């Protein structure tokens, strides 16, 4: 301990002062990242006129939940919210199952054709048909305006599959798989009874990745689900956030004239951002500790 402080002094910067500098810099970075989100949060519960007058830098002004009330009174946003939940749940179950079905066989070292099958999948990471040919195939398979258009063409998320495959190769004890083989368990039984339960951590990460991807997606829906009542939340929000236009349903329910309508539109912007962002921001910290492990298992081949 003594040696440490002494050597620190020799080089001009003690351990303690470098610690302080680091903490200060990290706090500034924390602020830069967190403040925009915090600002949207307080603006969403403030009087919109005060927001536009710059009175809500630190704390809400004239606290109100009107923005949230009008979001939940808007049928198009509610439909979008419902669609988003539906697509996220079904899509995540489907994607993770397909991911596991692909990753496990490819992790079995003595499977004939394993290398070739891996390449078959990996090629699609680097080369694809492009937007229009894919669109035409989706159309020909009858998926336009069908929610499966969101799940089937994405099919196998190859990058994630490699992470899971490498996890199976490196983190499932071979002795357990061999013991199951000796006991006469079939490959499928081994997969279900041993491999799946032992891979819960990576599965949690994949579930979260998949949920985030489906919850946040709007481009696939924009192309493949043109019917407005099939739009997920982000696509509904496009009218409000990007085009800055109030939906017809808002215009008809608000009686206070143009200024009032404008005010509501502004409030809805802030509260709908919070509603769209919050679910995923709540979920990811639960699997955060697995991110690094997952990336190590995936990125570096053992």
């Amino acid at each position, binding site marked *: 301990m003594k040696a440490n402080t002494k050597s*620190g002094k020799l080089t001009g910067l003690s351990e303690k002062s470098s610690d302080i500098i680091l903490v200060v810099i990290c706090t500034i970075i*924390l602020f830069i990242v967190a403040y*925009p989100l915090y600002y949207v949060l307080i603006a969403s519960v403030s009087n919109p006129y005060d927001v536009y007058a710059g009175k809500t830098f630190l704390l809400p002004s004239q606290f109100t939940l009107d923005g949230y009330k009008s979001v939940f009174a808007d049928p198009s946003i509610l439909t979008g919210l419902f669609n988003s939940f539906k697509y996220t749940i079904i899509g995540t179950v489907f994607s993770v199952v397909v991911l596991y079905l692909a990753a496990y066989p490819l992790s079995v070292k003595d499977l004939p054709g394993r290398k070739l099958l891996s390449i078959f999948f990996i090629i699609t990471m680097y080369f694809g048909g492009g937007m*229009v040919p894919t669109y035409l*195939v989706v159309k020909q398979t009858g998926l336009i305006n069908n929610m499966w258009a969101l799940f089937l063409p994405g099919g196998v998320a190859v990058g994630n599959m490699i992470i899971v495959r490498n996890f199976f190769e490196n983190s499932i004890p071979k002795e357990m798989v061999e013991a199951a083989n000796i006991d006469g368990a079939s490959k499928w039984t081994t997969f279900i009874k041993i491999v799946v339960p032992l891979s819960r951590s990576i599965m949690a990460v994949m579930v979260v990745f998949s949920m985030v991807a489906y919850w946040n997606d709007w481009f696939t829906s924009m192309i493949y689900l043109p019917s407005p009542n099939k739009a997920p939340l982000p696509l509904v929000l496009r009218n409000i956030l990007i085009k800055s236009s109030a939906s017809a349903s808002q215009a008809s329910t608000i009686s206070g004239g143009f200024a009032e309508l404008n005010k509501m539109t502004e409030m809805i912007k802030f509260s709908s951002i919070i509603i769209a962002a919050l679910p995923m921001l709540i979920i990811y910290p639960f699997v955060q500790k697995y991110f690094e492990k997952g990336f190590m298992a995936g990125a570096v081949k053992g």
Partner: protein
Amino acid sequence: MSRSKTAAARPVSQPGGGSLKKRLLDNWQLYAMLLVPVVLTIIYKYIPMYGIQIAFRDYKASRGFMGSEWVGLEWFSRFFSAPTFGRMIKNTVLLSFYSLLWGFPIPIILALMMNQLRFQKFKRVTQTVLYAPHFISTMVICGMIRIFLSPSGGLINLIAGTSVDFLTESGAFRTIYIASGIWQDAGWGIIVYMATLSNIDTSLYEAAKVDGASLFQRILHIDIPELTSIMVLNLIMSAGGLMNVGFEKVWLLQTDLNKATSDVIAVYVYQQGIENAKYSYSTAVGLFNTVINIILLIAVNKIAGRISEDTSFI
């Protein structure tokens, strides 16, 4: 007794042993598992690749990929002579290049700093917050950007006391795109570096401290060498995707007035192909972009192979 002996003597999984037919039969369940992923990949990845040929044909829905009339390089020459061709190439390359220039070093610096934080709880909270923006939809991010940059009541103008409409200034577009990109993804980008740094034996740091190495010297001589191979790999992968400017953010931030810098190939492919239903033309433009990317990818992979042996993902 003798039975169990023979069972134990026989290799269980028979790697390389047994006839191929027997090994295929032994593994039938594994092949059955692969059925769904393989079929999906063939239909939705490989058939579209086959459909790329419509870039050389005049595609008519009634005649299909194969039956449509062959027109050779007509669509390509039309694209090369499009009035915005030069502008789109330039914007695509520059947007991507500047993103890489700023976006590449920042996560590394962040990871090096975070790795030195000794207060575990503070470190964990910082990491959690830094990851947050990555989990937000592009749509929401672009909505926030538009709110913050609004000429009336936007946060930036409120702080600066001005009323500039940033999204109508073509000079500001790249800065907006890149800065918001860093805000959203630099935190997430540290993971791979943090994971690599966590491999370092802590006794190395102790030894360096005893030898009188400062914090900066420890980072320079212990941390950075550890990160070199993953840094090179990351740089190479991004360089290979230089023409891959994502469609979503550009499209959501584009206005009629900032097109001089925001007009990129990906947006053009969407507008021509999906909005205007010019299927063959759009496919040709997309193919042109892909071909350049593949050339870049092969070139950088060659360099990668020379630098490091373990950079292959396969």
